[in-house]
């Protein structure tokens, strides 16, 4: 064995080292890409941030007016994402509970429902935008905060529902049986035991969906509209941060572009915070859940 083995050992070791280095370089490239993105956004955007930028609405039209800030987009985005997340939660929690409490693991219905959710997850957000627009026309709505909330809620629904479903699946079956054997109805088991047990994990799922919702531009492009004012009611068009970036980056005026950069900074910051909060909740979930 020492003949060919001995001779090729050096080559084999070099191959190992080579691919190790290549793989490490790839991992470094991925991490570098993220740092580069964050770095670029911060470098361009932080100088654009100021108190007046954050507390004023644009003057003279968001596309042309050189005065004012991005308050319209901040408030619009928060209202829209909060509304959409609340609505998505109202749909996601019952469905996820239903799948885990009333359906067995081998259930065909549950499998199909999960499959449909995965399919919905894959639908591009521009398609949600187009679909939202169709629904809007059918209902006689115009581009408004409400239409935006409805569309983004649809976008968030599969993300949130699957996340909560995954968490609930980790709740031990024995817990359900223990609760059943105490004479609790399934419904009581659902809300008293399951939700409490899985609360931090559910929160992670909700935050994940919120982050996706607040950052999405394509779905609100036709549905939420855009306005200089902070929306006064659900029927008003609402500005959003992603669109504030998209529209205002394309103008020829540096002052207006500053508003785009400031919006990018605020949006990135919100995403970072949400992601951080999600991780914290996720860690708590790991600690509290009975396994």
């Amino acid at each position: 064995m020492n003949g060919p083995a001995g001779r090729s050992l050096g080559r084999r070791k070099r191959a190992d080292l080579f691919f190790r280095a290549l793989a490490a370089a790839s991992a470094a490239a991925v991490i570098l890409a993220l740092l580069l993105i964050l770095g670029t956004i911060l470098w361009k955007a932080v100088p654009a941030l100021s108190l007046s930028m954050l507390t004023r609405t644009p003057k003279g039209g968001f596309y042309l007016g050189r005065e004012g800030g991005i308050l319209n987009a901040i408030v619009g985005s928060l209202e829209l994402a909060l509304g959409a997340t609340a609505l998505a939660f109202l749909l996601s929690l019952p469905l996820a509970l239903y799948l885990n409490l009333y359906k067995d693991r081998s259930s065909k219905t549950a499998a199909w429902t999960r499959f449909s959710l995965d399919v919905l997850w894959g639908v591009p957000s521009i398609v949600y935008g187009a679909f939202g627009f169709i629904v809007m026309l059918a209902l006689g709505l115009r581009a408004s905060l409400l239409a935006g909330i409805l569309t983004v809620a649809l976008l968030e629904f599969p993300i949130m529902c699957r996340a909560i479903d995954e968490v609930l699946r980790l709740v031990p079956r024995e817990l359900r049986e223990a609760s059943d054997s105490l004479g609790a109805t399934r419904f009581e088991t659902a809300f008293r035991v399951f939700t409490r047990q899985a609360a931090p994990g559910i929160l992670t799922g909700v935050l994940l969906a919120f982050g996706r919702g607040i950052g999405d531009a394509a779905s609100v492009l036709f549905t939420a509209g855009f306005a200089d004012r902070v929306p006064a009611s659900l029927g008003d068009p609402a500005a959003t941060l992603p669109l504030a970036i998209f529209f205002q980056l394309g103008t020829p005026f540096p002052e207006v572009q500053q508003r785009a950069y400031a919006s990018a900074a605020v949006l990135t910051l919100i995403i970072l915070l949400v992601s951080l909060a999600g991780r914290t909740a996720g860690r708590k979930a790991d600690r509290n859940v009975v396994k």
Partner: protein
Amino acid sequence: MRPLKDALARRAMGLTAALPAALVVLIVAGLFLRSRAIVAVEPLSKLLFSSAWQPLQGKFGLLPFIAGTVWVTATALALALPVSILAAIYLSEYAPGWVRKAAKPVVDLLAGLPSVVYGVWGVILVVPFVGNVLAPLAGAASSGYSVLAGGIVLAIMTFPTIIHVTLEVFAAVPRSLREASLSLGATKWETTRHVVLRKGAQGILAASVLGFSRAFGETMAVLMVVGNVPAVPRSLFDAGYPLPALIANNYGEMMSVPRYDAALMAAALVLTLIVLFFNVLARRTLVRAERRGR
């Protein structure tokens, strides 16, 4: 009283279970109905394979946009697949524990960044890089707003999807299987290549398809850097005009032009069907791989 409440709750919750499937059907049906005005008049082959896009003359050939989507997606995957799979190999097979732990939030964060933020970054860095550095190197003239710029931005956006799924696939390969190979005197790389990658082949395929479908439907980031010229691109340095960008850019003005609206909806329908097809394929492969792994 309590059992009644339970029964009611069960019914109500059962209703929500119908929602996901109903939504899939509604989206496809809605898009189909709205695109009927053009799908019914134009032969499908003309709609899909004609490159004449002159809405004012009533010519709606989607080929430039389909080609744009394919170009950008293919470029993105060519860049993203090797890098993400190698990165996943490093994180799962070679990296010390602390690196793995530190890298995971980074990957998650990369997945959470909104596509407009990628777009802004692309406009600031990638477009000038392609226009001023890469294009001259390749002897091409380009503004930088190009298929390549779109591909690069999109590749980075698909990193987390592919890495995440691939890591899960690798984690499902039992340690003792790796040990079996190592104990025969195989090096780590030999073990990875012949055992881990082979065992995870189906899962990695599924990860790639998921990454692909994510890239295929991505709108804003690509739209901001790809140039948006409605012609079939001839090189990486040409501008392209993918389907999602077409829809996003023209939705406001379409009402005045007859059948424009239907053509855009047809574009959305094509996009949806392709993405759905690949998604279903990827999920099925994943499920099958999981079942075989047990």
